[in-house]
């Protein structure tokens, strides 16, 4: 049997099995899921060197599945994160109820993600897309809490995306008569599609929803913060990358290498759309960052941070130069790694302490040192500080923007990544630093099966900080699939088109040597008589604090910044949507009055609708 089909089958049957096993014991599904992901992953890595392809037809539809280099790139994310997340999940979900449905959906979504990236026709692409959406939706509302608050936005936004995508698929089919992706790309090359721009934009909307691009992002903070952390790392790390996957296909294969750049109108529109997207990405990054740094809840903070990071990725894809795309794909992988690690770390805190509210916890560093280490490494990578891998992606993005002439966009990106230091510090301080309180004195480090996946991810960040070539290699292959030629990369040296470079090996060596020198000097000099003291022993102006007084700075962390940036915080996008929704409700009220209950009236409506549709479609074609 074909491996691709086998992997899909394993995941889907694993999902069923997980659900069924939950009827026996609440502990079983976790192991079933772990086993399934392991089998799937092993199968994939055993076979992905061979060119895999499969095509079959069901009820007259030709379905094609195949592996290519671009697919493999994303498959790495899905399987890498999937297996770590399911290992993490076993202990994390230990005492939670309804594990059957959780794991079933968990496996379904991983399987369907793999299905999406191997789909070479629109039908299976869309089916897998919907399975992914639904399974993730079911996890968002898994515990039944806050369905209306959290799930509804996700469903609404996903529906918008799905309809946009479906319309695009139907339009494509009406043009070229087939659902094959390859046929679509060929048609694009030959300029055989009339309303290509409309199709592309519709597809982009569909993908932008998953990539949480503004203004379609509002589902993300709610959905991310409401899911169990073991899934959130997959959700934010891998599932959102499906949007990136699709956007990459559209923005690069359709816009950039369509062979239509000579067509002035087309070039203009595609350029324009790219620019709009890039700016949307920039604005997403900036605004989401601003929202992230006012969050009280660590998970929410990370959710907004995810949106911001995806903004950078979208910028890279929309700019579309070699360096930009490379940075976007690199950031996509790195985001999967560090955000996966961060969500896992926050999940560990949630499991051990019981909350992720940063105003309620502080000083966990001595209680959970490994979790702190992982968070620290991930945060440094997220902030883009050398010598960790986040810097590599940021560097390439800046260089791409500057060399490409997007001067003001680079300032926006810089603003948001500088502001990202604020929330980075917020989360480190909020959870791990500050006063060590007595009410968290009993807290212990998370179990090993939770710590190990996190540490693996953190180590990956450290290694790729000096040797990003490990990741560049699959990216370069993937970019060749997208149509770039001569994608150059180096194991440890970054360089831009102007010939300026950064040698990461020297960077990390220098940092290492300097740090070792400082460490030796500081640690061994005057070591005698030095005692470690608790955080109670601080200079509070000579006073002795009372028991109930709080000495950790927790509330409204960046109030002065908020005040300074007050105009940027004024208008919330959620509010705008709610206004729109209220308007629509009024409209629907009005519409309901039209329904008279008379069959003939309905018939008239239907006919009128069809006529209008006909006219519209005629004009469009």
């Amino acid at each position, binding site marked *: 049997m074909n491996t691709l089909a086998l992997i899909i089958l394993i995941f889907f049957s694993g999902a069923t099995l997980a659900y069924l096993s939950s009827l026996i014991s609440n502990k079983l599904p976790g192991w079933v899921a772990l086993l399934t992901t392991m089998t799937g992953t092993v199968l994939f890595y055993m076979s992905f060197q061979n060119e895999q392809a499969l095509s079959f037809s069901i009820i007259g539809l030709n379905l094609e599945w195949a592996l290519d280099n671009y697919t493999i790139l994303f498959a790495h994310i899905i399987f890498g994160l999937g297996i770590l997340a399911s290992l993490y999940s076993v202990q994390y979900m230990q005492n939670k109820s309804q594990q059957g449905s959780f794991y079933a959906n968990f496996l379904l979504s991983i399987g369907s993600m793999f299905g999406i990236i191997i789909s070479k026709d629109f039908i299976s692409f869309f089916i897998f897309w919907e399975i992914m959406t639904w399974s993730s939706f079911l996890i968002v509302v898994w515990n039944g809490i806050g369905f209306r608050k959290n799930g509804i936005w996700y469903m609404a936004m996903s529906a918008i995306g799905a309809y946009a995508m479906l319309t695009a698929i139907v339009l494509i089919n009406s043009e070229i008569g087939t659902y094959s992706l390859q046929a679509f790309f060929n048609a694009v090359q030959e300029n055989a599609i009339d309303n290509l721009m409309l199709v592309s934009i519709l597809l982009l909307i569909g993908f932008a929803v998953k990539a949480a691009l503004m203004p379609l992002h509002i589902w993300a903070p709610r959905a991310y913060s409401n899911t169990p952390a073991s899934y959130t790392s997959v959700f934010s790390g891998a599932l959102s990358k499906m949007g990136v996957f699709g956007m990459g296909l559209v923005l690069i294969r359709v816009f950039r290498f369509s062979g239509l750049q000579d067509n002035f109108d087309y070039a203009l529109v595609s350029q324009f759309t790219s620019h709009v997207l890039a700016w949307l990405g920039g604005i997403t990054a900036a605004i989401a960052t601003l929202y992230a740094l006012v969050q009280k809840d660590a998970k929410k903070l990370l959710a907004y941070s995810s949106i911001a990071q995806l903004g950078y990725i979208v910028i890279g894809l929309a700019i579309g130069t070699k360096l930009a795309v490379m940075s976007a794909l690199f950031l996509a992988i790195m985001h999967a790694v560090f955000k996966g690690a961060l969500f896992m770390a926050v999940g560990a805190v949630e499991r051990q302490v019981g909350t992720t509210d940063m105003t309620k916890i502080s000083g966990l560093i001595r209680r959970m040192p490994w979790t702190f280490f992982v968070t620290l490494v991930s945060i440094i990578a997220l*902030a883009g500080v050398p010598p960790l891998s986040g810097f590599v992606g940021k*560097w390439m993005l800046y260089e791409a923007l500057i060399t490409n002439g997007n001067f003001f966009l680079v300032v926006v990106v*810089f603003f948001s990544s500088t*502001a990202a230091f604020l929330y980075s510090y917020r989360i480190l301080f909020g959870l791990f*630093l500050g006063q060590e309180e007595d009410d968290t004195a009993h807290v212990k480090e998370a179990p090993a099966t939770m710590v190990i996946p996190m540490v693996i991810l953190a180590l990956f960040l450290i290694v790729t900080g000096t040797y990003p070539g490990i990741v560049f290699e699959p990216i370069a292959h993937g970019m060749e699939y997208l149509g770039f030629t001569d994608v150059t990369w180096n194991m440890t040296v970054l360089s831009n088109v102007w010939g300026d470079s950064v*040698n990461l090996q020297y960077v990390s060596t220098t940092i290492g040597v300097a740090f070792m020198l400082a460490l030796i000097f500081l640690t061994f000099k005057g070591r005698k008589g030095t005692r*470690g003291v608790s955080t109670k022993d601080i200079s*509070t102006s000579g006073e002795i604090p009372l028991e109930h007084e709080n000495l950790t700075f927790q509330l409204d962390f960046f109030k*002065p910044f908020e005040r300074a940036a007050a105009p940027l915080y004024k208008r919330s996008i959620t509010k705008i949507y709610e206004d729109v929704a209220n308007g629509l409700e009024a409209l629907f009220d009005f519409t309901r009055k039209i329904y008279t209950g008379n069959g003939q009236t309905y018939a008239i409506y239907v006919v009128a609708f069809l006529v209008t549709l006909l006219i519209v479609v005629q004009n469009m074609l």
Partner: protein
Amino acid sequence: MEGIGLKILGALLTTIMAFAVGMTYGGITRKLTARVQNRVGPTIWQNFIDLVKLQSKKTNIYHGVMGHFAPMWIITAAMTVLMFIPVLHPNSTWYSTWFPNLTFHGDLIFLLYMMVFGSLGMALGAGQTGNPNSAIGVTRGLSQMVGFEIPFVLALVALMVQYKTTSIQDIMAIQDQSGVWMMFSNPFSFLAALFASLGMFRYSPFDIVGAPAELASGPVSEFGGKYLGVMMTGGSIFAFIKLTLYVDLFMGGAYSIPELLIKTFALYMVPVFYGWVSPRYRTEQAIRYFWGWPTALGILGVIIAVW
């Protein structure tokens, strides 16, 4: 591999020079400040004496591992950035012998990010001590950083666009070839960067991080003895780094050490002068300040650089 010994010697020399210059500038500032304030003031070597004293103090306490690491992060960041910054002009003979270090292996954007490394360590260390003043100081510092980075980055973008390179050597070389310093060819960007430097040096009115009367010196309030000494060392190296960076980028670099000293000192006096006559801003006022005129100047600079 020949000349590795020479390289290490050069790196050592750079570090010592940066340290000595940074400390001496601090001492001169103290002396000048004292003269402005009708005082005799300490000797200009006072900072060195303070440093020796701090190192000779016993360290009775430390607040956990991050508190112990914080000074190390600062000094590490300082030394690393120093290695990647061209201290003198690449065409000068001194440079090729003693100061090339690793300057060909990093560029401007790398330096920008590397400079944050130390602040992050400091922030973490200050956070672990558990002193609320420290945490408030850190949030103030980070907020202010978002403020002054905007004009600074605008100036740098103008620079990179104008010269079509992100390498500092190339920027210096182009200024040398054209014979016009950046500060004259694009004065708006230079002014924006200069305003940003006020925030970078944290003299009045932007000394909101430490602000003794408000936060009892903020982040460093729990660090004494050798920790404070190492932080002081890192701080003076950073002062030298910032000045050298400005000289390299906007004043065409320096061919000899005396020239470097003159240029850096002239630049250094700008925030110092400003500090003598200014009270302290509140945090949001400081941020607003940077987002006002300096940013407008920066945008103007970019527009001029593009067209």
